[in-house]
């Protein structure tokens, strides 16, 4: 007897292959006659290309080809704009997308100049040293403010400035609110988010089969359907001739959705040209320059408050580092602009940003995707307001929370999904209460004072956030009962560890009365499912999950209809469970689902008009807008005031993402997000010099948190269903990563007793940076 699995901590279907070394990743593809690619990349950030000579490389034994931009002919095109600018009045946007190989100029370190093809990766990399390159170095645009001054070098001369985009969004009338405010607090903030650095780097294998007239591409992408459609167009093929497979992918976190990376564009072209399969696997050094980053913003922000601590309005003007190209449009800064508002009532808002071209790798979303930056500004403003108004930091947050009867709550500005930013549902105060309770907020001051007498410096932090999740446009799923009684589910999104093979199986299993282990889920293979958008913006479970549910519901209906015909009874008298349909109260009168599937595909006899063969259905789901999740993180740290060594004593996350499909997988998503948030707040910093050189491009120097830096986390959940989808789900993929910055800043100030003396206005922090910031302050 199968029981409902939705909401249960079902163990994962995909684990066995991963635990036994049998899961297929892109670099595991071995094909007869396969060639290997290596890229010669620019070692400087900004330069004119005077000469590239590959003659000597081509003479090296084992080298098959070497191509520069000019060899690509008409295939050399700037990439498509992935997310066009949203419909905001007065918006300025200069579209300058990345190119397959640099032609006249290089615009960031790591931009590819030459692709070399050889019989082995070793030979291809050897041949890079044979290539002669002459570059005329230009001053690099690295600093955002300097980049906007007259006389700055220009990343794209034809734009006339380094402005990639300029956007102002307003709600209410900030100036009027400020005029009647009791307090106005202004600060300048710097927030940098780093690189996603999945343990698997990027990779592409392209195989043109001249006889079959078919292109197969294995790609570490988060969006295989878009890659298929785009490459078919570029290669002059029909979409049906191109199959893109995103097999097991070793983490993504955003940058693996960026397209089209130069390598993604070039490998298929080379494979067609040479009629041989070609593989490229990014090495870790390349990953630091050739995969997109997130990076920094500078905010000049002010908050207007009444004397009782209510927010009257916020004004924010910020610069956003877009990097050398802007293929992802404005998703990251729009997220910052929107998410800044958080779970609070902000009646008046005036926010303006400028996205700046720099001679640094391109910025695209990385888990949180700009939300961190906005949340940092808001939470820090509230901290300084609490201090100035002498209100407890948790209390000032509580006073400003959107009340539960105010939903749907309209923030009036436009979000990244081009819809008005409206929170669908929420109940924020209980989340804050649970977090305060779990961290021991009431007793902490005693604990802190006691520790202080022992010479230990403890500090507490509490930060709130919302997360816009589950945006459209849509996803689809095909659910099919096979003749062996097992169920196949196929969907177009890719998967990078989120547990899709299990949560989608749970949804289908519950509808069809089969075991979760008997549902075989396929993701990320365009020949298995044709349509879809991809895995990003915490949308997989919400959008594809609901599509699976809709398709499984139709299959259930079909199965019941068939069985009712077979048994000549009403569908109401049937029960679907344990892989079969039986008559209520007469369990021995049953038909197996697999047999129904066979009956639905008869060898003889007429199929009635309007019916389809097979026990299957394909359905699509597209939400009107994103669902808004929310949460509170709380932390207690201990910090050594001499060395700034950090210990996290307690970390609490209380979170509301609507209906939970699988609490075990949800907890994993939160844990991983928190680890990345900790890295962002205190360990991970991309250090560039003024020439745009990354000075710490190795995992020995760019510090990903290890098991020693990430503490045990305590999780709590509340459930406020989303009214935007039948399952009531909100996304959860990014929640853990979002509020780490303000949490650390608050807790460190508290631990070191910095309040009123030194303000932490930037992220990431580190021991050395804290030393610099506090060296002139008596501790």
């Amino acid at each position, binding site marked *: 007897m199968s029981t409902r699995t939705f909401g249960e901590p079902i163990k994962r279907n995909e684990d066995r292959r991963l635990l036994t070394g049998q899961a297929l990743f892109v670099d595991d593809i071995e094909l007869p006659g396969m060639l290997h690619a290596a890229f010669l990349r620019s070692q400087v950030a900004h330069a004119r290309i005077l000469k590239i000579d590959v003659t000597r490389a081509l003479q090296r034994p084992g080298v098959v080809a070497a191509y520069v931009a000019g060899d690509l002919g008409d295939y050399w095109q700037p990439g498509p704009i992935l997310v066009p600018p949203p419909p905001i009045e007065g918006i300025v946007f200069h579209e300058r997308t990345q190119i397959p190989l640099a032609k006249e100029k290089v615009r960031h370190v790591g931009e590819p100049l030459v692709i070399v093809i050889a019989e082995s990766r070793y030979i291809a990399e050897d041949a890079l040293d044979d290539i002669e390159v002459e570059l005329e170095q230009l001053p690099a645009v690295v600093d955002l403010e300097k980049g906007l001054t007259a006389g700055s070098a220009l990343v794209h001369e034809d734009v006339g400035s380094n402005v990639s985009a300029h956007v102002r969004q307003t709600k209410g009338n900030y100036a009027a609110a400020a005029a009647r405010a009791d307090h106005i607090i202004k600060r300048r903030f710097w927030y940098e988010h780093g690189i996603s650095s999945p343990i698997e780097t990027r990779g592409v294998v392209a195989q043109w089969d001249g006889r079959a007239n078919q292109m197969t591409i294995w790609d570490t992408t988060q969006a295989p359907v878009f890659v298929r459609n785009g490459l078919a167009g570029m290669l002059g093929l029909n979409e049906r001739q191109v199959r893109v497979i995103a097999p097991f992918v070793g983490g993504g976190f955003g940058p693996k959705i960026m397209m089209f990376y130069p390598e993604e564009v070039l490998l298929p072209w080379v494979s067609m040209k040479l009629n041989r399969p070609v593989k490229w696997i990014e090495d870790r050094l390349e990953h630091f320059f050739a995969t997109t980053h997130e990076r920094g913003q500078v905010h000049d922000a002010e908050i207007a408050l009444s004397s009782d601590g209510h927010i009257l309005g916020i004004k924010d003007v910020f610069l956003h580092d877009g990097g050398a190209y802007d293929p992802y449009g404005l998703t990251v800064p729009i997220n910052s602009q929107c998410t800044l508002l958080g779970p609070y009532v902000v009646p008046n808002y005036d926010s303006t940003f400028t996205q700046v071209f720099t001679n640094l790798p391109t910025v695209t979303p990385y888990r949180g995707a700009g939300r961190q930056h906005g949340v940092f500004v808001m939470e820090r403003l509230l901290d300084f307001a609490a201090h100035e108004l002498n209100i407890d930091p948790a209390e000032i947050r509580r006073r400003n929370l959107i009340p539960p009867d105010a939903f749907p709550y309209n923030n009036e500005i436009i979000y990244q999904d081009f819809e008005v930013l409206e929170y669908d549902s929420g109940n924020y105060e209980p989340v804050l209460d649970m977090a305060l309770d779990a961290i021991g907020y009431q007793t902490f001051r005693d604990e802190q004072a006691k520790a202080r007498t022992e010479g230990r410096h403890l500090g507490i932090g509490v930060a709130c956030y919302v997360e816009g999740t589950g945006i459209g446009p849509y996803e689809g799923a095909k659910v099919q009962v096979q003749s062996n009684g097992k169920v196949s589910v196929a969907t177009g999104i890719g998967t990078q560890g989120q*547990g899709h093979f299990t949560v989608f199986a749970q949804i289908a299993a519950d509808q069809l009365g089969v075991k979760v282990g008997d549902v075989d889920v396929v993701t990320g293979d365009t020949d298995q499912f044709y349509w879809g958008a991809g895995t990003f913006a915490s949308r997989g479970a919400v959008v594809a999950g609901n599509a699976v549910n809709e398709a499984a519901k139709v299959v259930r209906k079909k199965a019941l209809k068939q069985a009712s015909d077979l048994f000549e009874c009403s569908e109401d008298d049937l029960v679907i469970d344990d892989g079969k349909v039986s008559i209520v109260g007469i369990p021995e009168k049953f038909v197996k689902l697999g047999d129904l599937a066979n009956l639905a595909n008869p060898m003889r006899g007429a199929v009635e008009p309007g019916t389809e063969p097979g026990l299957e259905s394909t359905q699509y789901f597209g939400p009107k807008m994103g669902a808004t999740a929310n949460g509170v993180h709380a932390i207690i740290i201990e910090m050594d005031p001499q060395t700034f060594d950090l210990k996290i004593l307690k970390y609490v996350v209380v979170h509301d993402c609507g209906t939970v499909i699988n609490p075990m997988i949800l907890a994993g998503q939160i*844990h991983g997000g928190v680890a990345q948030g900790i890295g962002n707040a205190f360990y991970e910093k991309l250090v560039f010099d003024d020439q745009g050189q990354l000075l710490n491009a190795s995992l020995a120097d760019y510090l*990903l948190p*290890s098991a020693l830096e990430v503490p045990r986390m305590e999780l709590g959940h509340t459930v406020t269903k989303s009214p935007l989808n039948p399952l009531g789900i909100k996304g959860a993929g990014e929640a853990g990563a979002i509020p780490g910055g303000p949490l650390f800043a608050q807790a460190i100030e508290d631990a070191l007793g910095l309040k009123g003396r030194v303000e932490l206005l930037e992220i990431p922090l580190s021991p050395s940076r804290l030393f610099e910031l506090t060296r002139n302050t008596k501790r």
Partner: protein
Amino acid sequence: MDIDFHDITLSVNGQKYQRRVESRLLLSDFLRHDLALAGTHVGCEHGVCGACTILLDGEPVRSCLLLAAQANSHEISTIEGLAGKDGAYHPLQQAMHDHHGLQCGYCTPGILMTMTAFLVENPSPSEGEVREALSGNLCRCTGYQNIVDAVMSAATRMRG
């Protein structure tokens, strides 16, 4: 350039292999691409992430920092040999499954090889010792908590 080769004989997961390898061939590439044992994953190729960890004569080593030629006449164990011949999980594999100790699973083989060796050396570790032993393996998905729980649970089970 002169390319020189070495004839090597080694055992991997109990099976003997004789191969001629280029002297500069990394052990990780040899295992993955020459022997088609692609369960050993490569994450950084500079010895930091730990994804490529294998056992060389029972000791965890990073296969990206060794040459195939250096493995001559040694015994190697990789992820492919960890489960029983009947497919039964090693207790640590079972515990990783039970505790949701993996997400994308890319770092998992290296973690399993590191921690199975660790549990042989220290059958009754504290949580702090597990975290210390795990700190040479980077995982970007899980936040480590469930891996730590899995290792502690496997240790209990293996002590019987």
